[in-house]
């Protein structure tokens, strides 16, 4: 009766969520939930969640792994600094997003006294300092190291810029906790974000978890491995690539609309699919995460209203415009609000649809026609995801939706916008059990079980709907 079990924990900003997994049968045993108590003592909410789990299971199994991810206490708040905005500053941004960070500030060129004051005010958990290719510009990154070194900012600094300038930068940063990772752009237009990502994760594991008080749950949790968005990303990567002889689903996109942001992850090369198309701009990482900080269904409901337009939202929700304006105003005041009635559910659906459509459009690349002296040529910027065959919806908004297909279908390519390279004809999967982050956490220790769980529990939306009908009828 002692089947091997794993406990996967998400220390969220509102809830502490648990998933108990049977590693032999590769099934979810039960889920438990408690409040998020990171502001006082995170272990309190953890124990409430465990008690909830115990109630559902009868008694708790002995867990072989107890692994956590965290988006509590503001998530992993990061500031990035680079040289040219489209080059090393952009590479640094991508490294931070890839590490699951919440970007609170991005800077380029020389930091000024005003920049330093604003960074100080942002109070990041980690600062990523880039700038210059290896052997390239060192003047700006040394100026920035001098500014950071002489200031009072006391967060860890990951240096991932011109390698030739590190020795001098190290001296300028004396007294700060600073580590050196490989340059995010070692050669012009060559993206190398994996080492910086790894350095960020290590600092998260070794220092941030403690600094934020998340390690107070250490009696109930062996390790808080990574920020929750990074766990979702690892889950997406495993689901796409498979493990060993077990194949995954191939190229895919994961969308996660939330209260404060909408995240999109893609696992696909995104290279031009048509021969002769010229790729422009910085090379794209195969595993890419974008975060739309202005597309949150609660904190930024008003911004979604502005972006999509109240008349369009009203039409999509089939509500009078006055009602939509009033409800959006109320949501901004009451960000934890769950929809109470048909009107609020209709608005939530319209907000999620608008947020997803826009977030997907921003994540995917586009093509434009360039007219040369010898006829038109096509140039692509960003990733071509038109051939992606699987789109996965995760997060509370999609899991709790009565008709997730109506949300997910908005990410598909729009024939009136042929320049946007969104998936043309994908099939959809819904993470009804909110398991993708758990699979990502488990991917390091038990990749085969994690993959099988993901494949088993991500379901087509029609099937979800049928379950719902059965449950309600």
């Amino acid at each position, binding site marked *: 009766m002692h089947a091997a079990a794993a406990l996967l924990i998400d220390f969220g900003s509102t809830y502490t969520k648990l998933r108990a997994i049977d590693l032999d049968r590769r099934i979810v045993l039960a889920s438990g939930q408690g409040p998020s108590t990171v502001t006082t003592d995170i272990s309190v909410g953890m124990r409430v969640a465990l008690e909830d789990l115990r109630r559902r299971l009868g008694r708790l199994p002995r867990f072989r792994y107890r692994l956590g991810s965290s988006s509590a206490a503001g998530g992993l708040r990061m500031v990035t600094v680079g*040289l040219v905005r489209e080059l090393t500053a952009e590479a640094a941004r991508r490294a931070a997003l890839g590490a699951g960070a919440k970007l609170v500030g991005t800077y380029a060129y020389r930091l000024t006294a005003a920049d330093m004051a604003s960074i100080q005010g942002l109070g990041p958990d980690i600062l990523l300092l880039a700038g*210059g*290719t290896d052997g390239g510009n060192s003047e700006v990154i040394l100026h920035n190291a001098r500014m950071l070194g002489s200031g009072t900012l006391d967060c860890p600094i990951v240096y991932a810029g011109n390698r030739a300038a590190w020795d001098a930068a190290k001296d300028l940063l004396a007294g700060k906790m600073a580590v050196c990772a490989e340059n995010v752009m070692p050669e012009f237009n060559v993206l190398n974000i994996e080492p910086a990502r790894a350095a960020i994760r290590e600092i998260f594991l070794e220092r941030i978890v403690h600094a934020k008080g998340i390690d107070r749950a250490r009696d109930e949790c062996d390790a808080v491995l990574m920020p929750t968005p990074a766990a979702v990303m690892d889950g997406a990567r495993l689901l796409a690539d498979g493990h060993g002889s077990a194949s995954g689903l191939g190229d895919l996109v994961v969308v996660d609309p939330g209260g404060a942001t909408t995240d999109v992850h893609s696992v696909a090369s995104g290279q031009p699919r048509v021969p002769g198309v*010229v790729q*422009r701009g910085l090379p794209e990482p195969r595993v890419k995460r974008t975060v739309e900080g202005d597309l949150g269904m609660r904190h930024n409901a008003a911004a979604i209203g502005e972006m999509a337009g109240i008349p369009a939202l009203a039409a999509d929700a089939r509500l009078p415009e006055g009602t939509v304006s009033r409800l959006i105003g109320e949501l901004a005041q009451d960000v934890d609000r769950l929809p109470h009635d048909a009107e609020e559910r209709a608005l939530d659906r319209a907000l999620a649809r608008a947020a997803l459509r826009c977030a997907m459009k921003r994540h995917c690349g586009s093509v434009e026609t360039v*007219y040369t*002296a010898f006829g038109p*040529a096509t*140039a692509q910027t960003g990733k071509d995801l038109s051939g992606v065959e699987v789109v996965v919806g995760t997060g509370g908004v999609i899991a709790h939706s009565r008709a997730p297909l109506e949300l997910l279908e908005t990410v598909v390519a729009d024939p009136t916008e042929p320049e946007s390279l969104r998936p043309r004809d994908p099939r959809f999967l819904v993470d009804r059990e909110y398991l993708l982050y758990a699979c990502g956490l488990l991917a390091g220790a038990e990749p085969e079980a994690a993959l099988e769980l993901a494949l088993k529990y991500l379901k087509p939306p029609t099937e979800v709907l049928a379950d719902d009908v059965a449950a309600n009828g």
Partner: protein
Amino acid sequence: MMPDPERMPATTPRTIVTGVIGSDTHIVGNRILSMALEKAGYKVVALGALTPAPEFVKAAVETNADAILVSSLYGQGELDCRGFRELCIEAGLDAILLYVGGNLIVGKHPWDVVERIFLDMGFDRAAAPGMRVETVLDWLAQDFAARERAPRRQAG
């Protein structure tokens, strides 16, 4: 005149940005030039065809380039290159060496007229159609040596 080897550290080769400016897809000549530069020991950042002027400058900033060599083969060079030196000054590259070469202007104009137009724009050298790669290498050696002797003063 050759550069003084004592003053050219062999470990850090000079960096040169190359590319074809504007909506011009003629890459072959530029590629030959880039290969020759590499063979001569320069570190080359080749941006390829269809490169807008600001991209040359951004690449030069990140790589701390010593020179930018702009190719233009389709006759629109005058339009594409206008303001190039100003862009460089704006980005803090006041003293960077700028060369331009190719079929720079449509129609039949005496080369000295064409050359004057580009030198007035702030390019240090303009290469006529049919210019040999060896000549460009000589120019670079001379101009870098001259700068070693008398570094151009920064503006301001």
